[in-house]
Every structure is written in structure tokens, then in C-alpha cells.
């Protein structure tokens, strides 16, 4: 009997690190605003060779979105698909469980593996968000080279990350393998210190 069921609460990937409040420079408005994104649904979707058309149809049916081309992120609110490698995408849902049944829906067209807890996600915005990221990301994030609907799989401070831009304020989502969240945060806090950084409560 699972008598401890009431105690089974998920623990956020950023619980020990991205503490709400002001970090770095205190004066003036913060250059970077960080919101930990806990409780999302994430899944890797890997296309079966030759079934790409069926996959695209199934994705269209479920998400109302087309399958992104390499480097693309097709989002609709918190849901969507982010390209993450040849024939591979990261499916997003706004809440844990939102992607339940995706594997069955895509059976024969793609392999699906739950990654909801495998990746820890931060939302970054604010006037200096790009300047902060420039300190770690070797990819050109200038509006002429990158923008809303674009994604990059790369590294920050030797840590593998995936970034997708949501809007041109700009707002970025940054995903990192869960066990690295602490080290990634240490880097982010240092990189943002000169601009001032505000962490908001997890959303």
C-alpha cells in the first residue's frame, strides 16, 4: 500500500538555486528577469525514418503546429515543438501531464521519451537578457541572426543547453540537463551581476 502517497510532491529543479529576489547590482531596474519554469511537460520526439509526413500530420493534429525545420521553434502559448537535432524535437506542454498519450498518438511515426524532469528550464527576459547570454553562448543571438521562433542547441560554460526565443522583448527559454542546474545558475548569476538580476517565483 502506498501509504506515503500524500508526501509525493515534486521538487523543483531550481529549488536550491534560483531563489526569488534581487541578485547582483542592486541599483536601478534589473537588466535580467529570471523565472524558473517548473512543472512543464517535455518530451523528446524522434522521427521514424520514412514516417516524417505521418509525424507532421500527427503533430498538426495534436498541437495545431507544423513540425519545425532545423533551428526552429513552433510555439503556441506554452505548448509547442522545438527542433533539437536531426529528426528530433522537444515537445512542450505547459503543465506536467500535458503530453500524456503523445507516445501512443505518434506510434509508428516517432519514438517519444518523457523528459519533463530531465531538463530544467528558466525563462529569461529584460533589457540585458541578450547581453547576459552573450557571455556564455557562442551562437549569434543578434536579431538579424536569431529571433522569436528560433532555437539553438549549444553550450554555456561547458554545460549543454538549449535556448529558444519566445518574443522580441526579448524573452528566451533556456533548458539544461537537470543535474547541471546548480552550476548553470552559478554562471548565470555571475554573468548577470553587472546588470542586476531579479528572480521571480516559479511559474
Amino acid at each position, binding site marked *: 500500500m502506498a501509504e506515503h502517497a500524500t508526501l509525493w510532491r515534486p521538487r523543483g529543479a531550481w529549488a536550491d538555486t534560483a531563489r526569488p529576489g534581487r541578485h547582483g547590482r542592486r541599483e536601478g531596474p534589473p537588466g535580467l528577469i529570471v523565472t524558473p519554469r517548473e512543472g512543464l511537460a517535455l518530451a523528446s520526439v524522434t522521427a521514424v525514418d520514412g514516417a516524417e509526413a505521418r509525424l507532421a500530420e500527427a503533430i498538426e493534429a495534436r498541437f495545431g503546429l507544423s513540425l519545425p525545420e*532545423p533551428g526552429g521553434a513552433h510555439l503556441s502559448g506554452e505548448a509547442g515543438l522545438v*527542433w533539437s*537535432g*536531426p529528426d*528530433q524535437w522537444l515537445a512542450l506542454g505547459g503543465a506536467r501531464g500535458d503530453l500524456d498519450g503523445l507516445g501512443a498518438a505518434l506510434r509508428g511515426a516517432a519514438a517519444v521519451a518523457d523528459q519533463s524532469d530531465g531538463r530544467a528550464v528558466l525563462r529569461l527576459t529584460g533589457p540585458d537578457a541578450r547581453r547576459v547570454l552573450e557571455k556564455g553562448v557562442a551562437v549569434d543571438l543578434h536579431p538579424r541572426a536569431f529571433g522569436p521562433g528560433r532555437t539553438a542547441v549549444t553550450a554555456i560554460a561547458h554545460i*549543454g543547453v538549449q535556448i529558444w526565443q519566445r518574443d522580441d522583448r526579448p524573452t528566451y527559454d533556456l533548458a539544461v540537463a537537470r543535474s547541471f542546474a546548480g552550476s548553470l545558475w552559478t554562471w548565470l548569476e555571475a554573468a548577470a551581476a553587472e546588470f542586476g538580476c531579479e528572480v521571480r517565483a516559479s511559474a
Partner: protein
Amino acid sequence: MRIRCPSCGERDNGEFSYLGDAAPLRPDGMEASAEAMHDYVYLRDNRAGEMRELWYHGAGCRAWLVVTRDTRTHAIREVQPARDVAKARATTPAGSASHA
């Protein structure tokens, strides 16, 4: 050095790891000879000049790539997804692709 990953665009070579010459092909199957396997595993042309070589975009999209690069100048002429190259190879008659 910068390598233009076909999917991710141009990236610093630090995102990639290197395997080596893409020319030797694994002698597959139970009929393969130990001698052929020895040559595949150990012997290299080690060319000074243009060479097709295998790189892995480990810090990016995790694709294996065939990079055509000049080992004297580092000039890169072409980068292809290794899987595409391998699939094309699989459809060509046996043997004709070795040391291409």
C-alpha cells in the same frame, strides 16, 4: 576553427569531437576478415591535404558529420550529415564506396 553544422549553422570546433578519417569502412558481417578489420581499426592515410573526416556535434545536435577539410590549411569545403552519407553509401553497390 569554425565548422558549419548542416543543422545548427557555424559553430566553434570546441562543440565537436573528432573521430578521424571517414574513408575506412567497417567490414561488416561474419565473413569479414581479421586483416580487413585490422586495417579499418588501425591504418590511416593521414593525408596532408583534403580529407573527409568524421566529427560529432556533441555539444549541439548530436549529429555525426562528414567534414571535408584540408589538414594543411583547415579550409573546410563541405560538411554533410554522416547519416545521409552512410545511407547513400548503403544504396551503392558493395565495395564501390570504400576509400571514396
